[in-house]
């Protein structure tokens, strides 16, 4: 299996390298998935193969505690996820700045990397996510505490099975397991944060939101505070943008990475 050693973890990684690199020098796209029920499969079954086909070098990995990566009992602060990402890049011999695509919580990791290690990041691509500000820690504290309480109740899992199907119920059980056996729900709200003015983020940012999810309310804040930012809101769409609007997301993000990489190559 494709595992690499990154610090204390055995990390499950999948890399799809293009047969024909875009512009002769494939931009590297690193994909960071969301919390609890998510894994690198969300990318492997959506934009990963499509990007490689179009000439991008795609690196996907399972976050600590998720998928087939080691699950430590503690150490789930955002900065640990950022350190893991740097370790994955180092272990994969990726030295060039990368385009970091983050879905949901993955976007917070991507912003965290851009703030902590601007030298490693060419651009940040946000899919339905938030920068790790103080407000974000409060959202996460509420959401995680609520999930930890509810998912432990058998009737809730039964309700999920009846209303959302057996597959979702099984994912919810898996989410409950990581919530009950690790300190993730307590650690994430205590993460290091960046200032709400987003001044720590200097790289170009591309953000895709679902119009119905609530997170699209950040668009004016992004456009006011980020130095270089483009936002797209997909109407009539909730949080599951990556899975439910895959074709559009592929077009949008591929176009962004291609154009940003070409602009940066000219500047260098």
């Amino acid at each position, binding site marked *: *299996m494709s595992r690499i050693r990154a610090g204390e973890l055995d990390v*499950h990684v*999948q890399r799809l390298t293009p047969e024909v690199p875009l512009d002769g020098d494939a931009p590297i796209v690193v994909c960071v998935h969301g919390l609890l029920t998510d*894994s690198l*499969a969300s990318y*492997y079954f959506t934009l990963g*193969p*499509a990007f490689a086909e179009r000439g991008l070098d795609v690196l996907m990995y*399972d976050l600590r505690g998720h998928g087939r990566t080691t699950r430590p009992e503690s150490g789930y602060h955002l900065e640990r996820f950022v350190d893991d990402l740097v370790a994955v890049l180092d272990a994969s011999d990726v030295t060039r700045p990368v385009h970091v695509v983050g879905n949901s919580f993955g976007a917070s990791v991507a912003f965290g990397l851009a703030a902590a290690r601007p030298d490693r990041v060419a651009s940040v691509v946000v899919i339905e996510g938030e920068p790790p500000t103080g407000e974000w820690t409060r959202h996460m504290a509420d959401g995680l505490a609520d999930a930890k309480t509810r998912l432990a109740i058998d009737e809730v899992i039964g309700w999920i099975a009846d209303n959302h199907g057996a*597959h979702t119920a099984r994912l919810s059980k898996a989410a409950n397991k990581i919530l009950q056996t690790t300190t993730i729900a307590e650690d994430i709200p205590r993460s290091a944060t960046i200032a709400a003015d987003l001044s720590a983020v200097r790289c170009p940012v591309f953000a895709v939101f679902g119009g119905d999810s609530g997170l699209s309310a950040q668009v004016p804040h992004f456009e006011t505070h980020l130095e270089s930012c483009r936002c797209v809101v997909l109407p009539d769409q909730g949080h599951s943008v990556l899975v439910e609007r895959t074709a559009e997301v592929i077009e949008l993000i591929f176009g962004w990475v291609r154009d940003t990489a070409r602009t940066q190559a000219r500047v260098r």
Partner: protein
Amino acid sequence: MSIETTATDEATVLAQLSGMLRELLEEYGLDDAEITMDTTFHDDLELESVDLVALSGQLREHYGDRVNFATFIAERDLDEIIALTVGELVRYTVASLRATA
């Protein structure tokens, strides 16, 4: 009609895939599961999508570029992936190996 004795017949590939699946299942303590052509990855083996990704890595190690699991998956949506049987993957693998033999 002659009997297939090369590595490209379904029984041989099923045996090879079963070995890879047992390795994956070992981590969940389920390595004694019976695996046939009709076994489904999700309902019978309780594998999640990320386990199928890991399986693709093993396929690549075993068969090299001759079996492209990423392409196989890219042609299917999530519901079809969930309903996937071992037999479907065996037949795809056999077809890929024969095409590149």
